[in-house]
């Protein structure tokens, strides 16, 4: 055991280099920095509801309209310019983003229910998130004006009826049923809440798998490149220990790297997704439907994630035998990336159960698919598929580790190389 610990310490020391630490901190800092900028832009969008109005009509109706916009939450700024072109010039000179012109005769036409067009001028000064908010602001203002005018019209014509009842005579009450439990709420609300809560599971998994696999592949490639593997293979220690030490060290370093990386990433995503509903109402709905992870569910999900990582490490060890140096290790990681990315994207944008049978079987054969689909299936109470996935991954891992152990216990670890897509034996041995 002491020999194994000795080996493990060496592997970790070799993996955690200054370059790795700097690159990790830089990436995390970069995500944090982007997150700060994105957050401030989004806050700017939410805060800026300034509306500049030139009222060329000056009637009671146009006055009521601007008052109503104030009541609706817009900050109304009335310009004193008395013609359209000077108002546009003023707006241009004062960096005003949205200018609304109420035409002359608007009030008189409105009193006869013959409306005149209101003109809006939006200035695009950049293509940032906040600049694109101008369109939404215009739509909001026009929507509010239309609501105000149409309600007035309906009240005038049908004084005994609520205008909203006339505009939307049929209303619906939404119910959602999951696992036989029913609660009042919309399916979209449930989906967006579950999505916001579980979006990080596949991202974390993908990061850890890719980091750890890259680590283990690089560890073997480096041993070959620096000509240290031969010496290591002649020391009195079990070859299986060599394989396991590399896997454990890669798993640990990969886990730490992905964890640090995710801190920055989580801040970045949190900044972008701050508007996804996660309030008490949605939380209550989720609770009523039982769409929450129980402690046992977390354990199940953890086992599934852990086995997927072990499978990736086992596969990476075998691929590592085929590499000659760090350069070829970067190419050799590609098949693994594809195997992880396919279920990752499918789980992000589609439902695996809705795919055709052959495609579904193909996806299920990839061991990394199982943790991606496990979180949703656990929430929906489909435990069978999660258990089958765990058993399948365990079998795959055992097979991979036996293959890796056998390769390391023979001279194939030194003699087999992959060169331009074909296997050859090293002639110089």
């Amino acid at each position, binding site marked *: 055991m002491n*020999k194994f610990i000795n080996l493990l310490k060496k592997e970790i020391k*070799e993996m955690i280099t200054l370059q790795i630490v700097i690159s990790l901190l830089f990436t995390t800092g970069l995500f944090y920095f982007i997150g700060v900028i994105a957050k401030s832009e989004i806050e700017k969008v939410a805060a800026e509801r300034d509306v500049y109005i030139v009222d060329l009509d000056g009637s009671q109706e146009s006055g009521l309209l601007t008052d109503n916009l104030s009541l609706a939450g817009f900050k109304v700024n009335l310009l004193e310019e008395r013609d359209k072109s000077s108002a546009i010039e003023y707006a241009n000179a004062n960096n005003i983003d949205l200018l609304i012109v109420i035409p002359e005769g608007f009030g008189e036409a409105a009193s006869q229910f013959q409306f005149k067009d209101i003109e809006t001028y939006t200035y695009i000064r950049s293509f940032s998130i906040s600049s694109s908010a101008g369109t939404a602001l215009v739509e909001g203002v026009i929507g509010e004006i239309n609501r105000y005018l149409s309600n007035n019209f309906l009240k005038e014509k049908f004084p005994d009826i609520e205008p909203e009842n006339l505009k939307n005579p049929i209303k619906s009450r939404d119910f959602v049923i999951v696992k036989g439990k029913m609660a009042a709420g919309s399916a979209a609300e449930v989906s967006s809440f579950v999505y916001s809560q579980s979006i990080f599971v596949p991202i974390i998994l993908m990061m850890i798998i890719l980091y750890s696999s890259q680590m283990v592949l690089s560890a073997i490639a480096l041993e070959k490149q*620096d000509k*240290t593997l*031969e010496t290591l*293979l*002649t020391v*009195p220690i079990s070859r299986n220990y060599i394989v396991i030490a590399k896997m454990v060290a890669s798993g640990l370093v990969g886990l730490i790297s992905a964890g640090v990386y995710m801190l920055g990433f989580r801040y970045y995503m949190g900044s972008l997704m701050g508007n996804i509903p996660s309030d008490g109402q949605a939380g209550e709905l989720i609770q009523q439907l039982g769409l929450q992870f129980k402690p046992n569910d977390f354990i199940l999900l953890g086992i599934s994630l852990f086995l997927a990582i072990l499978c990736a490490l086992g596969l990476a060890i075998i691929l590592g035998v085929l590499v000659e140096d760090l350069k070829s290790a970067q190419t050799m990681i590609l098949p693994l990336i594809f195997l992880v990315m396919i279920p990752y994207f499918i789980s992000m944008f589609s439902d695996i159960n809705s795919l055709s049978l052959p495609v579904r079987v193909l996806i299920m054969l990839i061991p990394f698919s199982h943790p991606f689909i496990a979180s949703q299936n656990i929430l929906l109470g489909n435990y069978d598929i999660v258990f089958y996935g765990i058993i399948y991954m365990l079998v795959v891992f055992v097979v991979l580790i036996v293959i890796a152990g056998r390769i390391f216990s023979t001279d194939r670890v030194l003699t087999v190389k992959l060169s331009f897509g074909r296997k050859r034996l090293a*002639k110089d041995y």
Partner: protein
Amino acid sequence: MDEIILRVENLKKNYGKREALKGISFEVKKGEIFALIGPNGAGKTTTLRIVATLLSFSGGRVEVMGLDLKKEPKRIREEITYLPEEAGAYKNLTGMDYLKFMARFYAADKHEFDEYVERAVEIVGFKDRLKDKVGTYSKGMVRKLLLARALMTKPRLAILDEPTSGLDVINSLEIREIIRSFVQEGTSVLLSSHNMLEIDFLSDRVAIIDKGEILEIGEPEILKQEYSAQNLEEVFRRLVQ
């Protein structure tokens, strides 16, 4: 009768259809330096790698201290050390960390561990640089570090593939002297080299190998007399021609 540390009998190794070793046989006695000399591709490194338990073999028998290499490779690894021709050390470890890392695999207790590390520090000769990372060492320093690693445990059999490969004259001389001194303390050495002068200086006996076959075995002086040659290079040329 001299104790036999290594016995190789009719050793064969095939790479696909190519015969790298065609049935070679030799023995290495206790406290002896036995050298394999021959051109590139003769089978020297293959032989050394087989004895070092790295490569499998197609036929024959190899015994290290009476242990069958096919049956007891793990036990054999406790008694041997191997210095490959182009070996490197872990660049992110310091020289001292590397020596300690290797010593832990062989030492039975703390006392033995300290003894191995102390001996290795004596062999390397650059104690002040052992706190630096291996990545900052010159080629000569790395080679000395690796030789120190190979000899610090006083193995029963040290397998050295081109021990002075790529080194300057001063470093080569130092390494040869270190090897000689360890043999006097009981270690047996199996080595290979292209450098006939080195072989002449170091070896007690040599085997001249070409195309996977041993052409001649004997003491350098006797071989030179037999073939009326000034040096081993001439012996080698006459045998190959």
